[in-house]
C-alpha cells in the first residue's frame, strides 16, 4: 500500500490547499510543507522496505482499471525507480521551502506543484504502459500553467514553447507505446506482459528511435534542447528545481525503462549513432554555457551538458556506464535543484540575473556563496561529491565501449570547470559593490533547504556504495538482457 499512499498524499494535499480560506495566504505553504514532509517520510519507508537481496520489482500493487482494454492500475518500484522516487521527494520538499515567499495565488501554485509531483511519482513506479503515459502527461501539463502564471520575463513564450515541445515528445512516445501495445501480447498494457514478448529486430529498429526521441526531448537531447534554457529562465524557482531536477530525468528514465528494457536489440542498433549526439550535448552544452551572461541560462546549459553524460551512460550500453547514468540522474537532480534554489535566492536579493552586474557578494552572503561553490564543485565533478562518482562510472563504462569518443566526453569536465569557476568568481569574488551592501545572507528556511541538498551531495559522494547497490539491482537485470555486449 505504500506506493499508492505516496501517490495519494500529494493529491490530497493539493485538494486540501484548494479548500483553504482565501484570506489565509500563509496556510497553503504550511499545508504543502506538511504534505511534502509526509511524502519524504513515505519514500524513506519505501527505501527501508525495499529488499536489496531480492532485487527486482517490489511493493507491487495491481488492480483492474479498464479490463476491456487491458489497462491495469499496476505500480511497483525497482532499484532505479526507488532512487528516482527519493530524488523527487527531496526536490519537492526543498522546492516548497524555496518557494516560501510566493505571494501570487499561493493556493493554486502549491496545488499545481503537488499535482505535478504526483505525476512524476507515478511515472517512476508505473508498471502499466497506459498508466505510465497518463502520469507522464500529468507531470508535464501543470508546467505550462506554473511557468505561464508565476514565471518571469518572456513567460508566455517560454511556457508555450516548452509545452509544445514536450507535447511533440509525448506524441512520439504515444506512437511508440501504441506500437508496443499492438505488437505485444495483445489486450495488455502491463509492462511485465510486454517484456515477455520478444519483438522482431525490424520492429525494434523502427520503434526504438521513436521512443528515444520522444523521451530524449524531455531529457534535453541535442538538438532538441532549446526549450529547456528558455523554460528555466522564465520559470519560478521551485518549478525550475523540479523541472531540471526531476522532469528531465523522466526522459532518461523512460529511455531506460521502455527503450533499453523492452527493445534491447533496437538500442544496440542505434546506440553507436546516438552516442555522437550525446557528446555534442556534453561539450557543446558546456561551451555554450561559457558564453552566457544570464545566470539561469548558465545553469540551464550546464543541465544540457550534464544530461549529455546521462545519455552517454545510457547509450554506452555497458552496466558500469548505466549505473553511472542513473547515479548521475540522481546527483544532477539534487545538484541542479541546489543551483536553481540559489539562483532564485540571489535573484530575490540582487534583482538581477546578469552575472556581469554582480560581484563581491561573498562578503555579505557567505552561506549562499558556500552553497553555490558546493553546487559548482559537484558540477565540475570534484571527488567527495556525488557528481564525481557518477561521471567516473559513466566514463569507465563508456570507455570500454567507445574509447576514443569517451575522451571527447572527458574534456567536458575541463570546460565545466572553466564556466563554473568563472561564474563563481564573477558573482561572489572581487570587491564588493555599493548597491549590494545591504543584502542579507540566507534565512533559516533557506539555510535548511540548501543544507539538505548539500549534505545529500556530500553523503553520496563520500559513501556512494549504498546508492550504487540499489541502482545495481536494476542494472544487473538489464545487463543480463544485453548478454553479448562486453
Amino acid at each position, binding site marked *: 500500500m505504500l506506493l499508492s499512499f505516496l501517490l495519494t498524499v500529494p493529491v490530497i494535499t493539493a485538494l486540501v490547499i484548494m479548500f483553504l480560506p482565501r484570506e489565509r495566504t500563509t496556510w497553503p505553504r504550511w499545508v504543502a510543507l506538511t504534505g511534502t514532509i509526509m511524502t519524504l517520510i513515505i519514500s524513506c519507508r519505501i527505501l527501508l522496505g525495499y529488499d536489496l537481496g531480492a532485487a527486482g520489482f517490489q511493493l507491487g500493487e495491481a488492480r483492474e482499471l479498464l479490463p476491456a482494454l487491458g489497462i491495469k492500475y499496476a505500480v511497483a518500484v525497482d532499484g532505479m525507480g526507488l532512487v528516482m522516487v527519493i530524488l523527487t521527494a527531496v526536490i519537492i520538499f526543498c522546492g516548497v521551502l524555496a518557494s516560501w515567499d510566493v505571494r501570487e495565488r499561493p493556493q493554486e501554485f502549491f496545488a499545481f506543484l503537488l499535482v505535478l509531483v504526483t505525476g512524476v511519482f507515478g511515472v517512476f513506479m508505473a508498471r502499466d504502459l497506459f498508466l505510465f503515459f497518463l502520469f507522464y502527461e500529468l507531470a508535464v501539463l501543470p508546467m505550462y500553467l506554473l511557468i505561464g502564471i508565476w514565471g518571469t520575463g518572456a513567460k508566455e513564450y517560454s511556457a508555450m514553447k516548452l509545452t509544445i515541445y514536450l507535447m511533440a515528445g509525448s506524441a512520439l512516445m504515444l506512437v511508440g507505446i501504441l506500437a508496443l501495445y499492438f505488437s505485444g501480447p495483445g489486450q495488455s498494457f502491463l509492462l511485465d506482459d510486454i517484456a515477455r514478448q520478444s519483438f522482431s529486430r525490424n520492429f525494434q529498429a523502427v520503434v526504438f528511435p521513436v521512443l528515444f526521441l520522444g523521451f530524449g526531448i524531455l531529457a534535453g537531447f541535442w538538438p532538441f534542447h532549446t526549450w529547456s534554457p528558455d523554460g528555466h529562465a522564465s520559470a519560478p524557482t521551485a518549478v525550475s528545481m523540479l523541472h531540471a531536477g526531476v522532469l528531465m530525468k523522466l526522459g532518461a528514465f523512460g529511455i531506460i525503462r521502455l527503450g533499453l528494457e523492452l527493445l534491447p536489440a533496437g538500442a544496440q542498433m542505434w546506440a553507436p549513432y546516438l552516442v555522437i549526439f550525446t557528446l555534442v550535448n556534453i561539450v557543446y552544452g558546456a*561551451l555554450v554555457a561559457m558564453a552566457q551572461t544570464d545566470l539561469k541560462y548558465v545553469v540551464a546549459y550546464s543541465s544540457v551538458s550534464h544530461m549529455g553524460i546521462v545519455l552517454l551512460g545510457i547509450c554506452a550500453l*555497458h552496466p558500469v556506464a548505466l549505473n553511472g547514468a542513473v547515479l548521475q540522474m540522481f546527483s544532477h537532480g539534487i545538484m541542479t535543484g541546489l543551483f536553481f534554489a540559489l539562483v532564485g535566492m540571489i535573484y530575490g536579493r540582487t534583482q538581477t540575473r546578469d552575472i556581469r552586474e554582480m560581484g563581491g557578494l561573498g562578503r555579505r552572503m557567505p552561506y549562499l556563496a558556500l552553497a553555490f561553490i558546493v553546487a559548482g564543485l559537484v558540477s565540475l565533478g570534484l571527488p567527495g561529491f556525488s557528481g*564525481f562518482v557518477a561521471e567516473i562510472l559513466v566514463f569507465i*563504462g563508456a570507455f570500454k565501449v567507445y574509447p576514443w569518443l569517451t575522451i571527447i566526453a572527458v574534456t567536458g*569536465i*575541463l570546460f565545466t570547470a*572553466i564556466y563554473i569557476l568563472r561564474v563563481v568568481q564573477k558573482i561572489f569574488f572581487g*570587491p564588493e559593490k555599493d548597491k549590494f551592501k545591504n543584502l542579507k545572507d540566507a534565512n533559516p528556511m533557506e539555510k535548511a533547504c540548501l543544507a539538505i541538498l548539500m549534505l545529500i551531495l556530500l553523503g553520496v559522494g563520500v559513501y556512494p556504495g549504498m546508492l550504487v547497490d540499489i541502482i545495481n539491482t536494476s542494472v544487473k537485470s538489464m*545487463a543480463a538482457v544485453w548478454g553479448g555486449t562486453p
Partner: protein
Amino acid sequence: MIAHVWLIPALPLLAAILVSAGGRRSARLAGSITAGAVFFSLIMALNVLTGLISAPGVEQVSMVWLRSAGNLSMELGMLVDPLSVIMLVIVCFISLMVQIYSLGYMAGDQGIVRYFSFMSFFTFSMLGLVLANNLITLYMFWELVGLSSYLLIGFWYHKPEAADAAKKAFIVTRFGDLGLLIGILVLAYFLNTFNILEVGEAVKGGQLTGHWSTMVALLIFAGAAGKSAQFPLHVWLPDAMEGPTPVSALIHAATMVAAGVFLVARLFPVFAASETALMIIAYLGGFTALLAATIACVQNDIKRILAYSTVSQLGYMMMALGCRDYIAGMFHLTTHAVFKALLFLAAGSVIHAVHTNDIRQMGGLGPALKITAATMLVAALALGGIPPFSGFFSKDAILMGIWAAGRMDLLMVGIVTAGLTTFYIFRLWLVVFTGRPAEKKYQAHESPWVMILPLLVLALLALSLGWLGENFRHFLSASWGAPSVGEAPHHRLIPMFALLASLAGFGWAYLVYFQKTISAALLARKFAATYKLLKHKYYIDEIYIFLVRQGMFMLSRGLAWFDRYVVDGMVNRIGEFCRLAGKGTRRLQVGRLQAYLLAFFLGLVVIMVSVLMTHPEILEIIRSYVCPATGRVVAML
C-alpha cells in the same frame, strides 16, 4: 602498524571540521586546534617511520567503496611503504611548521577560522594522496588538494588578482588532470584494476602492449606536470603567489607542487616500462629547470622569484626521475621541501616587516631582521648547492644520476641551472638584506617568536638533512616500485663543476648587487632584448591568453550564437510557419452558416462520388435494397 595509519590524515580532517563548525567563536583557538592535530599526526607518522626503518616492508589495506555490475569495484585504500612514509613525515612536519608560523603571520585576519580550516583540510588531502594505494583514491585526493589550493590562493577573494589566480591555478592544473583521468581510464580498460601494486605488476608483465605503455605514462605525466608546474603548464604557479605567504610555503613550495614528482615516483613501474616516456620527462624537466631559472633572474617580486625557483627545482627532480634516478629525485624533493619552505617563511617575515613584495623597495634589512636574514641565508646556501648545506648533496645526487644515465646534454643543463640558481637567490638575498635602505621609510622589526621558531627549526634541518644521504638511499630503496639500485653512481669531477658554477653565480651576484662594480641597470640596457624577453616570462602567458580569448571564447560565443539563432531559430521558424498556416486557414472561418452548409454538402458529394467510384459493389448493394422495393411498387401498379 598499518591499522592506525588512517588516523594520520583523519586528525587534520577532524580539526578542519571542528574549527569550521565553531565558526567565529573558534577564532582564537582555530590555529592551536589545527596545529595540535597535525602535531599528533606528525608523532604518529614518525612512529610509523621508525617502525618501518626497523622492519622494512610494503603493506596495504583497502575497503570497498562501491561495487557495480560489470565487474567493477572501487576501493579506498592505503599503501604504507618507505616512499609514502617519507612523504607523510614531510607533509606533517612542514604543515606543522607553517601552521605555527601562521599563528603569528595571520593574527588579526578576519578570515582566520576559514584559513586554518582550509590549511587543515589541505593537510588531510595531501596525506590522503600520499597514502593512496589505488588510482581512484589517488585521483580523489589529487583533486582535493587542487581544491584546497584553489581555496587558499583565493583566500583574499575580494582582491581580483587573487580570485583570478585561484581560477587560473585550478583550470591549468585541471588541464593536466584530464590527462591523468584518461590515463586511469586506459589502465582500467586494459588491466581492469586500479590497485597501484597490481597495475605495476601488470605493466611489468608486459600487459600494456605497443605504444600504449608510452601513452599511459605520458597521460599520467600530464597530471604530474600540471600539479608540479612543468612547462607548458607552469604558468599558474607564479600567479598562485597571490595567496597568503604561509600558504605559498606549504602548498606551492614544499608539498602540493611536489605531488607530481611523487606521482611519477609512486607509479614508477608504469613509467619505467617506456623508455620514450622517461626521456620526454627528463628533457621536459631539464627544459623547465633552465627556463624557470632564467626568468627568476630578472623578477622583482620576492615571492615570484621564489616561485620560479620552485618551478626550476621541480624540473630538476623530474629530470632525475626521467633518468631513472628515483632516489635522487625523492631526496631532492625532501631537502627542497625544507629549504624552500624556509625561504618562503623568511620572505613572509620580511613582507610582514615592510609590507611590500617588491625587492627594489627593500634593502639593508639585515640589521633589523637578524634572525630572518640568517635563516634565509642558510636556505639560500642550501638552494644554491653550497656544501655542507643539504641542497648540495641532493643536487649532486641528481647530477650524478643524470651522468649515470649518460645524458651529457642534460648534465650541462643541470650545471648551468645550478649557476643561475645561486645567482638569482643571492641577488634576492643581497638586495633585501644588504646595502642602503631604499627610500621608502619603514619601521622594520623582527617578527614575533611564533614566526621565528619555525624558521630556526627549518634552518637547522636545511643545514643538516644532506648528511642523511646514504641512510635515505638505503631506506627508500625498499619502497614498492623503486628500481633496483646498486651503489650510488659516483664521479669526482661533477660535484666540482657544479660547485664552480654555483660559485660563479654567487660571484656574479656579489659583484652586481653587493660590490656594485657592475651596474645592473647597464646590463639590462646592454642586453635589452633578452632582458625584456625574460621580464615578460617568454610571453608564455600572453600566448595562452591569446589562445583562450581567440580560440576557446570565440568558439564558445560562436556556438552560443549558433544555438540561439540556428538551432533555436529553426524551432521558432517552425512555430512561425504553424502560426502562418493557422492564419491562412482562419480565413475559411467566415461565420456564415450558408457557406458552411454549402461546403458540407459539396464535401459530402465529393466523398460519395469517390467512394462509389472506387467501390462499385456498393451500387449493387444499394440496388439490391432499393430495387426490390421499387419492383414491388411497380408490381402493385
